[in-house]
C-alpha cells in the first residue's frame, strides 16, 4: 500500500513539473511573437491614382492633347521584422526596432485602368502612343511613391501601431504571469 502511495505521489509530482514547465513557456514574451506582431501591424495602403499625359503640339499641324489614366494600387508600410530584436533581463525587456518603411513596393492593378482623353484634331492630329502612356504611368507611380514617403503621418502610425501592439502583448503576458515588465525601446541604427 505504502509503495503504491509513494509511486502515485512521485508520478503526480513529475506531471506537475512537466505541466508547470510547459505552461510557463506561454507566459514569456518571445522574439518570434514580437516579429509576428510587427508583421500584423503593417499597413495595407490602398491608393487610387491618375497618370497624366500633357502632349503639347510641336507644330501647327498638331493639337494639344491630354489623357488621364486612372488606376488602383496597394503599397505596404511597416517595420522590417528582420531588424527587430528582443532581450530579457529580469523584468526589463529591451526591444530594438527600425523606423517604418515601405516594405512592399507600390503594386499597380492593371485591370483597374480607365482612360479619359481629350478629342484629337481632324486635320491636326497628335496621337497619344503606348510609349506616352507607359512613361506617364511610371511618372505617376514615382510621384505616388514620393507622396506616400512624404506622408509622415502614415509612417508614424505604422510605427506607433507596432509599438502599441507589442506593448499590449508584453503587458498582457505579464498580467497573465503575474509580472510587471518594464519595456525599453531602442532605435535600430539607420543605414545598417
Amino acid at each position, binding site marked *: *500500500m*505504502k509503495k503504491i*502511495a509513494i509511486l*502515485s*505521489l512521485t508520478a*503526480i*509530482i513529475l506531471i*506537475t513539473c512537466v*505541466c*508547470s514547465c510547459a*505552461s510557463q513557456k*506561454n507566459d514569456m514574451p518571445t522574439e518570434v*511573437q514580437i516579429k*509576428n*506582431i510587427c508583421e*500584423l*501591424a*503593417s*499597413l*495595407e*495602403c*490602398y*491608393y*487610387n*491614382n*491618375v497618370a*497624366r499625359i500633357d502632349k503639347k503640339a510641336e507644330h501647327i499641324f498638331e493639337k494639344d492633347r*491630354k489623357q*488621364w489614366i*486612372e488606376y*488602383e494600387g*496597394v503599397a505596404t508600410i511597416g517595420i522590417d521584422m528582420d531588424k527587430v530584436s528582443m532581450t530579457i533581463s529580469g523584468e526589463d525587456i529591451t526591444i530594438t526596432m527600425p523606423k517604418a518603411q515601405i516594405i512592399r513596393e507600390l503594386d499597380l*492593378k492593371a485591370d*483597374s485602368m480607365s482612360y*479619359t*482623353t*481629350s*478629342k484629337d484634331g481632324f486635320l491636326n492630329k497628335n496621337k497619344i502612343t503606348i510609349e506616352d502612356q507607359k512613361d506617364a504611368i511610371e511618372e505617376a507611380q514615382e510621384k*505616388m511613391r514620393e*507622396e*506616400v514617403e512624404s*506622408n509622415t*503621418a*502614415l509612417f508614424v*502610425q505604422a510605427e506607433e*501601431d507596432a509599438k*502599441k*501592439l507589442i506593448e*499590449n*502583448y508584453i503587458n*498582457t*503576458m505579464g*498580467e*497573465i*504571469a*503575474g*509580472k510587471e515588465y518594464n519595456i525599453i525601446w531602442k532605435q535600430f541604427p539607420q543605414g545598417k
Partner: protein
Amino acid sequence: MNVLKAFSLASKTVKNVVFTAIGAVFLVVVLFLVFNKPGGTEITCKSMLKSIEEKSDMSTIEYSYNSIATVYDEKNENVKYHVLYKGTVQAGIDFKKIEIEKNKAEKKIEVTLPEIKITSISVSKKPEDLDYISNKSIKTETFLKEAYTVAEKDLSMKIQGNNALFKAAEINAKNKVEALLKPWVDQMPEYKLEVKTRGDLQ
C-alpha cells in the same frame, strides 16, 4: 484473538483512509497550483474585448484617392468637362462593435468585426490639385467654383462601391485585432483564432 484481528483490520483501514486522504489533499493542492498560478488571469471574452477597446485609436487609416469626375451640361446630356482631383479617405472599423465568442465545441475563438466605415472624406482645395479636360474652352474661375463641389460628390459616391479600398481596410482591421488577441490566444494552445467580417458571414 478475534478482538486482535478486528483491531488489526481497523488499524489497516484507518491507515488506508489516512493515506487516501493525504493523497487526495496533495492532488487538490497540486492541481490548484498548476491551474491557479498567483497573478493568473481567467481568459474570458470580456477581458479580450477590453484589451481591444483600449486600443480603439488604431481603428482607422487614411487612404489616398486621386480621381476623375465628369461634369455634364444643364440638360445632363453632354459632357461639359472632366475634372481631376486629389482626395483622401479615412476608413476603418469601430472597435467597440467587435464581437467575441468562445466556441468550446469547435475549440475556436470566433471574432466578428463590424462593417468597414468611411469616417472622413476630403478633396484638396488647392487650384494646382485640380485640372480639367474639355473640348470647349472654359473659364478657370467658373471651373474652380464648380469643380470642388463636383469632386467631393464624386468621391463620396465612388468610395461606397470601392471593393479594393474596403478590402485593404478589412485586412488592416483583421491584422490589428489578431495582434491584439495574440497574447490571450497563446494561453489557450488548444484554441484557434478565427477573425471574420460581417461580409464573410453573408
